[in-house]
């Protein structure tokens, strides 16, 4: 049986390729914060306290554009509401942990960490120390996000905008979903959710980010009914 430390290291190793996009995205975020006129401390604080890439950008953009705090906070909440779905999926695997451990691990639940650790959990069912995988993937993502934000705050302006590094974000998520591209039902719900997100993109408060997964899950439900 694998030890806690071994599983922790596998978590780091599994999520490591995604750092290729998380790192530049953090730099871009740090640079955007400064560009919008926020102080280095304020910009960095969002990485520590909110710790949710896209939502931090929207948060600062709204505040700098003169939106009320309420609107900025609501948008952050809506964008990050996808974590409810991640939590629901992960709850099964974190079931037996103490409340303190659950509260600790929760802080580190982010997109890429959820994706790779969920895959690990499915492949290695019911092993006692599996949750160390999520701690490993989460902590390294957290660490790189903090470091890259700070680099972006101080050196972000030297990264040429023409590089279009923001494109690394859709790419890191494409790299996650390719595992399911051989399953027709998954491809079907992917296209549905993707199109719904695209057409609802301009809906208020970025609600597209939660509307489209819910529509996708509804489609999945129907598919499962039809299969029987």
């Amino acid at each position: 049986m694998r030890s806690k430390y071994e599983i922790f290291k596998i978590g780091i190793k599994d999520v490591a390729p995604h750092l290729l996009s998380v790192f530049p995205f953090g730099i871009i975020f740090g640079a955007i914060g400064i560009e919008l006129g926020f102080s280095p401390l304020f910009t960095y604080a969002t990485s520590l306290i909110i710790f949710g890439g896209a939502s931090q950008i929207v948060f600062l953009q709204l505040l700098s554009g003169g939106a009320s705090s309420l609107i900025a906070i609501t948008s952050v909440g809506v964008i990050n509401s996808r974590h409810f779905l991640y939590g629901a999926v992960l709850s099964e695997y974190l079931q037996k942990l103490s409340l303190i451990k659950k509260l600790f691990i929760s802080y580190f639940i982010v997109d890429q960490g959820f994706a790779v650790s969920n895959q690990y959990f499915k492949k290695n069912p019911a092993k006692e120390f599996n949750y160390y995988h999520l701690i490993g993937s989460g902590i390294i993502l957290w660490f790189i996000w903090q470091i890259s934000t700070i680099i972006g705050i101080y050196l972000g302006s030297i990264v040429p905008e023409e590089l279009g590094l923001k494109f690394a974000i859709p790419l890191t998520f494409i790299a996650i979903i390719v595992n399911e591209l051989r399953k027709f039902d998954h491809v079907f719900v992917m296209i549905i959710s993707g199109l719904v997100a695209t057409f609802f993109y301009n809906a208020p408060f970025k609600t597209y980010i939660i509307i489209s997964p819910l529509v996708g899950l509804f489609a999945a439900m129907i598919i499962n009914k039809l299969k029987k």
Partner: protein
Amino acid sequence: MTWTSIFIAGILTYFTRMSMVTLIKKEMISDNLRKILNYVPSVVFPSIIFPGVLLDDFGAFVTISDPKIFGAITALVIGYFTRNVILTIVSGLSSYWIVIFVF
């Protein structure tokens, strides 16, 4: 005021992360629900990918010859055949740059 809003946004975000993990008990999840939850990655990530590729910074559709479209298709094809995260990201980004800087 704005500092307060960072903390509120942070608490709210933390709540989205911890609520389900702490509140859901095993017996609440039926086999049917578990099957549906299986699709979560397949419904959340495309919701970020599609607008990220098909729309520009202002929320308008890009043209079919946009470098992002070329980069995304390359990444999908390479990813489909290799299932390698690094190759998927690198192939997508480099084909995107080739369209931007060479053509």
